[in-house]
């Protein structure tokens, strides 16, 4: 009798243990998978936000270098060549924003893991206006708080992204003058250091 009772008691403990294991295992598996996914979506050990910040840092530095050391120097200081919207046709330099977009297209041709674009609520080309809800919210946020990047996640075309928006300011008088005087510009009162739009960086999750 005691042996039977012992066997019954042992069986209950085994059944309980199995039930506990069955309950815990899926949660453990989910946590493990999330950990793997996080580490596989984070090149070099960086999280998606870090990747977006790193990409933006490089973009901003390159564009500032091009604006200051190429366009401003050759056009305004040395006066040997100008930058023009129709640079290819007129055999001139691309505008800094065009240089940015050309780089964005090249980057997108080489990888789908991240992308970047330059958008504005007052674009000269209407196709560069914010389109997704995240882009619209992000541009609004960086206008209100230019020093604070905006981060969110969104799903586009069945793929999930971390979307980061950074304020894009008028860093030179040439930016202000061109946009204020362009026949297709919907806003003509920009001033130096104004937020003119935003850089949108997306990292695939």
């Amino acid at each position, binding site marked *: 009798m005691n042996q039977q009772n012992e066997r019954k008691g042992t069986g209950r403990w085994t059944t309980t243990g199995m039930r506990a294991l069955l309950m815990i295992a899926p949660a453990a598996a989910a946590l493990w998978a999330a950990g793997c996914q996080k580490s596989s979506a984070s090149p070099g050990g960086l999280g998606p936000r870090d990747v977006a910040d790193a990409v933006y840092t490089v973009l901003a530095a390159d564009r500032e270098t091009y604006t200051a050391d190429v366009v401003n120097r050759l056009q305004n200081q040395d006066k040997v060549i100008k930058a023009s919207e129709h640079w290819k046709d007129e055999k001139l330099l691309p505008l800094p924003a065009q240089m940015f977009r050309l780089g964005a297209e090249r980057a*997108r041709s080489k990888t789908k893991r991240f992308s970047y674009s330059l958008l504005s609520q007052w674009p000269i080309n209407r196709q560069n206006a914010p389109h997704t809800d995240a882009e619209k919210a992000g541009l609004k946020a960086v206008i209100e708080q230019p020093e604070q990047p905006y981060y969110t996640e969104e799903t*586009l075309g069945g793929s999930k992204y971390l979307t980061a928006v950074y304020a894009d300011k008028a860093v030179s008088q040439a930016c202000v003058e061109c946009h204020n005087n362009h026949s297709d510009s919907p806003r003509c009162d920009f001033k130096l250091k104004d937020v003119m739009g935003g850089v949108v960086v997306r990292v695939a999750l």
Partner: protein
Amino acid sequence: MLRLLSWFRAAPERLVFVACAVVPLLLFGAFHVAGNRTPFVPGSTSSGHHQIESQCASCHTPFAGATVQSCLDCHAESLKARNDSHASSKFDDPGKADQLALIDARDCRTCHREHRPEARERGSVSVPAGFCMTCHTQIAEERPSHRGFAPDGCAVAGCHNYHDNRALYEDLLRKHASDPDMAANPRVPLRTPHGAKPTVPRATPDRERGERDEATWATAVAEWRASAHGRAQVSCAACHAPGSAAGDAFVAQVADSVCASCHEGERAGFVAGKHGMRGATGLPPMRPTLARAAMTTQALTSDPPLGCTSCHGAHAFDVRRAAVDACEGCHADEHTQAYRTSAHAAAWRAEVAGRAPPGSGVSCATCHLPRIPTGARAADGHALVQVQHNQNGNLRPTSRMAREVCQPCHGLRFTLNALADPAQNGSNFAVSSRPAPHQIGMDLIQRGEGRREPAK
């Protein structure tokens, strides 16, 4: 064999089944070996591709169908040169995913479907003319001048082109709005001497091996001496025994690849256009009987294969003959037949006769095989100009001709209106009156109506 026959005799329907399976395969194999797959083409192709429609591998990858890459293999370079306004790279941004779900602008096949002639509306385009509104939904709000325009007007009005806007963008129209109809000194660039030298130069033509009667030999030598080849001392062996020392066999019929050894650029243009595209895909050369365009009776009767000497002639290589007479020898359409009575032809005759300066005449080649500055300079500093041998390179849209061909002589407004006027085009610009306004973009800009509405 007997067992096979008895197998069929046991159930005669087996013979029908096997015949239905085997005979088509045999027929397919026969046509494939013969190089003629035309019976298997499922629906006619556009005018741009009909010459190569039997060369399925030009576009189709086994087990993958026609891919975007196969389009780019032929057209990528041209699109880049035209500063493609809607390059697929502009649509790779994930933010455009919902627009791409409506119309996938990254894929050439979205708008250019082959083998479906019933779907083609305008040339090779197989989407409705109002497709622009899929993305440019707010154009009427942004630009007051466009309110009331038909939604399908973008693609057909002549103001915009999906790929090539080099002659149509606002700032260019604004810049040239006041150009006179005719320039003060209308001239096209002059061709520059070819700098390449063959590898086997000899001072005088040798009497080569191969049977030649004296009259034929004398004619060939006389024509050669008077030609640019003769002046440059390009000897017989350079073409007829190319790249060889003495002792190699004389080749009577010189392959176009030999011409390309010096005239690489011209040959590259030739095989990119409708005159030479069949050769580029491994098919036999184009012949007049294969053309959809109207051809002369003489051309259809003789039906010669098309190559370098078809237009230039052997030995004489007369570029003036190639500029007009060669074209008229094959082409019998309204535009070609109207050339001789046009003002352009009168200017050409004056130049040829020496009564007008070089570059002032307008031949068929002036427009359709234009002279393009290469950007490079010769050793003595003069700009190098090459004749573009892709006669299809500036045909569509017609505005493509404006910058390369018409602007050296004509104002931009005059040019765009003339190119857009079907009457002018058909009569080879023989209509004496000023072209009626067909292209309204410049008018809108001059009235200051191009500016966008300020953001609200």
